[in-house]
């Protein structure tokens, strides 16, 4: 089919002379393609940013939580399972476990000025050296003022970024300030860097021993963080931990009151959710492609009417029905392709704009719109195919025209 190329050049010479109308009907295609390309670029960029962020936390970590509990959520009375203080010993016995750190958190009244009073998260973190650094890694703690908690600290606190900067508070806290948690005075020793969500940025971290003293309970740990020895795979270690904890509790597989997950698994399940959201959004965007397809079909029908005579001439000089069919389908595909090119450009612009706005709002440098070559090529091919499919019916009509009749009427 060497004629394809020839037809294509004829088709383009016809499109060059298209009326405003044809360009308008392309709007549907290019808005659709722009939305699809834009959303996918953003989604991929977001995925990459999340993956990079997780990589920073390290893939050698395992999180143990009560069952039915999502990572970092609040345990309450309905929580089906509870972790035990003893679990630490059990986990420590598992081969491949390097460090185990236990943390607790709850909402408490916090006061630091006449008008500054409210209920925020208080987190009890370990202060022993390696447990402390493991906790800091997993909770992404970076100190920007002062220092983090030391092993023999008591009634000392590290506060979230908002306490030091937020204009929502009358008085801001810095190292040396005093803060009252549950009617007990604490000295602020450090300020955490911004994480971008209010929950984290308003959390106050205190030593875990002080936490128990303060709330006067011997609570069960809410989260157990495990670091895996380099020579072991986190998945295997997580499996062994599960087995040991089951044995300890006399529970059958599938009926555990605890959950063991590697950070990688958290990442995977998070990305799955992100993918579902993305698919739904792209699906919605695709509706405008349908509108675009109908627009192209309409234009092609009009074109066939307008060019009846040309079709008759072409048939008289030897064009077969299949040639005419092909010519009109290529032309229609080309309409789609032109719409696709405009759409891809718009989509790239849109996603980069949104990403840069996102970077400013979230204060992260990680979020970049990601548009791999196969997304662009795929979008263009898709636009061409949509155009071509929209042209099938009009092209069939063109091909079935009788030369005598088209040549008779002027």
């Amino acid at each position, binding site marked *: 089919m060497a004629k394809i190329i020839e037809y294509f050049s004829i088709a383009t010479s016809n499109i060059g002379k298209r009326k405003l109308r044809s360009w308008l009907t392309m709007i549907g295609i290019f808005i659709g393609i722009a939305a699809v390309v834009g959303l996918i670029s953003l989604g991929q960029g977001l995925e990459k940013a999340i993956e990079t962020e997780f990589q920073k936390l390290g893939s050698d970590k395992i999180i143990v939580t009560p069952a039915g509990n999502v990572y970092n959520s609040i345990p309450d009375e309905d929580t089906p399972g509870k972790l035990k203080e003893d679990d630490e010993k059990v986990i420590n016995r598992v081969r491949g476990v390097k460090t185990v750190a236990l943390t607790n958190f709850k909402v408490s009244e916090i006061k630091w000025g006449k008008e500054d009073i409210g209920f925020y998260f208080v987190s009890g973190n370990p202060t022993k050296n390696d447990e402390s650094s493991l906790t800091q890694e997993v909770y992404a703690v970076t100190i920007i003022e002062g220092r983090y908690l030391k092993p023999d600290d008591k009634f000392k606190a590290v506060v979230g970024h908002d306490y030091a900067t937020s204009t929502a508070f009358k008085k801001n806290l810095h190292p040396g300030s005093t803060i009252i948690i549950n009617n007990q005075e604490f000295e602020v020793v450090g300020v955490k860097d911004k994480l971008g969500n209010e929950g984290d940025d308003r959390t106050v971290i205190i030593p875990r021993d002080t936490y128990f003293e303060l709330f006067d309970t011997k609570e069960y740990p809410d989260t157990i963080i495990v670091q895996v020895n380099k020579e072991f795979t986190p998945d295997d270690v997580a499996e062994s931990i599960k087995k040991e904890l089951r044995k300890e509790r006399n529970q059958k597989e599938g009926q555990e009151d605890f959950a063991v997950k590697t950070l990688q698994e958290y990442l995977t399940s998070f990305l799955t959710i992100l993918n579902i959201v993305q698919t739904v959004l792209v699906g919605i965007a695709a509706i405008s492609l349908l509108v675009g397809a109908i627009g192209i079909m309409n234009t092609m029908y009009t074109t066939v009417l307008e060019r009846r005579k040309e079709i008759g001439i*072409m048939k008289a000089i030897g*064009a077969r029905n299949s040639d005419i069919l092909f010519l009109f389908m290529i032309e229609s595909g080309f309409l789609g392709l032109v719409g696709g090119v405009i759409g891809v450009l718009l989509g790239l612009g849109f996603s980069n704009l949104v990403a840069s706005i996102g970077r400013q709002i979230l204060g992260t440098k990680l979020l970049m719109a990601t548009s791999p070559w196969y997304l662009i090529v795929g979008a263009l091919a898709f636009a061409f195919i949509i155009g071509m499919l929209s042209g099938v019916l009009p092209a069939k009509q063109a091909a079935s025209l009788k030369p005598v009749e088209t040549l008779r009427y002027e």
Partner: protein
Amino acid sequence: MPETIIELNNVWKTYYMGNNEVHALQGISLKVKKGEFVAIMGPSGSGKSTAMNMIGCLDVPSKGEVYLSGKDIMNMSESNLAQVRGRKIGFIFQKFNLINTLTAKENVILPMILQDMTKQERELKAYEILKLVDLTDRMNHRPNELSGGQQQRVAIARSMAMNPEVILADEPTGNLDSKSGSTVISFLKKLHKEKGTTIVMVTHDEHIAHNAERIEYIKDGKIEKVKHNK
């Protein structure tokens, strides 16, 4: 004895317009031999164009047979007929029927594209025939930038693109002044004489018809009489 290239045998063509039947052809029989120059004359509405459409395989008869080089066109598929039109027959119309978005040269090249000629061959051939009809200086103009006579010369060039055995010209001078008309006729005569191309031409002008070797007179969709010139 040269072979018969076109034969209409008792051909009828009926058009239906609502409840009305129009019998455009009513049992016409006609033979054209290879290398002949035949003129067809007759009053308006007598069926000349309809007959030409049958000869050119642009339409099929309601009744009767049309043979092209001995083959019944009723037995040929659509794509076969298109092939025959493209390779064996060249058309020249009263209204030129060029494609307005293409230049003169592109119009001439189009039949060659449809027959899968290579680009190199096409360019050479197009130049050669445009030179023959004396239009090389106008080959990159579009039809609306050309005079009627020039457009008809482009149409002649296009009809020659595939070296057809037959050229069918339906009132080729009908839209031209007498000077451009006689130029067009002189090109047709040259083609006939130098290349031996068979020519069938419809005309209303007795004078022009006398360039042909034979004149077939049509009336009411039938051959009324035949006149041999010379």
